[in-house]
C-alpha cells in the first residue's frame, strides 16, 4: 500500500477533565481534523496502563495517542506526571521491541485548547501515515503468532 492511500487507525486516550473537553471544544467550534482517531475517555492519563497501548497495537491500531492535562493542571494533582514516567518506561520497551516510538505519542491538551487538539490529531495522523501500517505485531500475513 502506498503511503498516500493509507489511512491509519489511531486510538486516542483522552483524559476526562482536559483533553476530552478540548476535543469537545474542537467539535463545537467546528474545527476540521482527520477522522482517523477513535476516542476512549479515561478519568486521568494516569489511568493508562502501558498494556492498553500494547493491546491497541496488537489489535491492529497503527498508532496510539495519549492526551492529558498540562503539567500542574491535573485534576488529581499528579496523575499526568506519573503517566509521563510510565510512558518513558514504555518508550524504552518499545524501542527494545523494535516498534517505532513515533507510533505512540503523548501530548498535553487543556479544555480550552480546541484548536490545539485539532492540530495534535492532524500531526499524529500525518506522522503515523508516514510510518505506514502497523504490520509487525499483528498484520503480517499468515503470521500465526500474536
Amino acid at each position, binding site marked *: 500500500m502506498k503511503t498516500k492511500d493509507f489511512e491509519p487507525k489511531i486510538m486516542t486516550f483522552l483524559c476526562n477533565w482536559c483533553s476530552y473537553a478540548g476535543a469537545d471544544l474542537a467539535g463545537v467550534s467546528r474545527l476540521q481534523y482527520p477522522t482517523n482517531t477513535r476516542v476512549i475517555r479515561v478519568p486521568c492519563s494516569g489511568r493508562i496502563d*502501558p*498494556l492498553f497501548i*500494547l*493491546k491497541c497495537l*496488537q489489535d*491492529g491500531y497503527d498508532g496510539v495517542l495519549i492526551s492529558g492535562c498540562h*503539567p*500542574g493542571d491535573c485534576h488529581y494533582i*499528579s496523575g499526568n*506526571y*506519573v503517566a*509521563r*514516567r*510510565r*510512558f*518513558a*518506561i*514504555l*518508550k*524504552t*520497551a518499545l*524501542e*527494545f*521491541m*523494535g*516498534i517505532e516510538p513515533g507510533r505512540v*505519542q*503523548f*501530548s*498535553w491538551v487543556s479544555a480550552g485548547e480546541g484548536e490545539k487538539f485539532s492540530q*495534535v490529531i492532524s500531526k499524529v495522523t500525518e506522522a503515523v501515515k508516514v510510518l505506514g501500517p502497523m504490520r*509487525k*505485531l*499483528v*498484520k*503480517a*500475513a*499468515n*503470521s*500465526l*503468532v*500474536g
Partner: protein
Amino acid sequence: MSSVLKLSRSAEEGLRELLKFLLEKKRVKAVFTLCKIKKNGTVSYSLITDADMLKDALPLFPLMPQNAGKLLSRLTLKEHLAEPIAAVVRPCELRAFIELVKREQGSLENFIFISTTCPGTYPLEMSVNGDISKKLPEYEEDVKKGNVISDTRPICKACEHFMPYSADMTVALIGEKDIDKNCEIFLNTEKAEKLIEGMDGELVERELETEEVKNLRSKRQEEKRKLFEEINVEGLGLSGLVETFGRCIGCHGCSRVCPICYCVLCDFDSRDYENEPSTYESELKKRGGVRVPPNTVLYHLGRLTHVSVSCVGCGMCTDVCPADIPLSTIFLKVGEEVQKIFNYIPGKDVEEAIPLNKFEKDEFTEVED
C-alpha cells in the same frame, strides 16, 4: 573497614553456629533458612525455632527453590513480625523483598538479614537427582578462587549485584581462600554487633571488597555481555521476540515465581483477554490464521512493561520455564535499560521510592508531543 566476627570453622558451620547462638540466647525468636528436606539433597526454605533442628539447615546451599523475598513478603503481609527473626537470604532475594516492602507487601520490622557475597546458584532442575551435592566440592573450589562457576544459572553467572546492599551481616565467600576452615561474618549494622555479643570468636577489622571480588565483578560483566550476545538480545526486535515468546505454553509460571509480579489477580488470568468469537472471525478474515490461545506474546510484553523497573534479575522465571524461554536474559536487558533512565537500582535502599511513585515536574519532556 568493617568489624568482622571470625570463627574457626567452615563458612557453613560457622553460620550454623551463629544461628544456633542467636536462637539459644533468645536474641531471635526464629531462623529463616534453607533446610534439607530429603536425603537426595533437596532443600526448601524453613522457619526454625528449635536449635536442635538447625542440624538440617543448609544456609549456603547453592539453590534457590523459590525467591525468599516472595516468601518473606507472605510472612509479613498481614502484620509485621512481633519478634525478631534472622533470615539467611541471597542478595537478590533481599532486594526483591525490599522492592515488595516498598509496594506495601511486607514489612522489614524485626528482621535481621544475613546474606553472603553470592557465588551463584544451580538451576532448579539440578536439584532433583542430588546432582548439586555431587557438584559441591567443585563449587567450593571455584568460590575460593573467585571464579564464575560453571553450570550455575546463566543469570547468576552474569549477575553484578552479588554484594548485599542492606544485610545486617554478610558472610564473606567469594575469593576467601579458607572458607573450609574460617568463617568471616561482617557486621554491617549496630544491631548486628549487639546480637553477637558474647559469642566465641575473634573480632577483626577488614574490607569486604577484595581484589577477588573486583575481579569477579569484571568477569561477570563479561559473562553478561556474552549472555546478551548469545540470544542477540539487542537485535531481537519484534519478530525475534514473537518467535522467542511464541514457544510459551501459557502456564504463567514465570509470573507465579516472580517476586515483583505481586498482583493477586493478574489481568492475564482473567477472561478479559479471551477473544470473542467475532474477534476470531474478523482476525481470520484478515490474516487467514491465528494462534490459539491468543495474547501469548502480549502477556510477556505486558509483563516486561510492568516488571522491568523493579526486576532484580533473580532468574526464577527462566528456572521454571518449561519451554526454556530465556526470560531472565530479556528481562535483565530491558530492566537495565529502564532502570538506567531513572538511575535506580531496585532493592538497594528501602528509603528510595519506586520510580513510578514519584516524579519531578520537569523531566522526560522529550516524550511529550
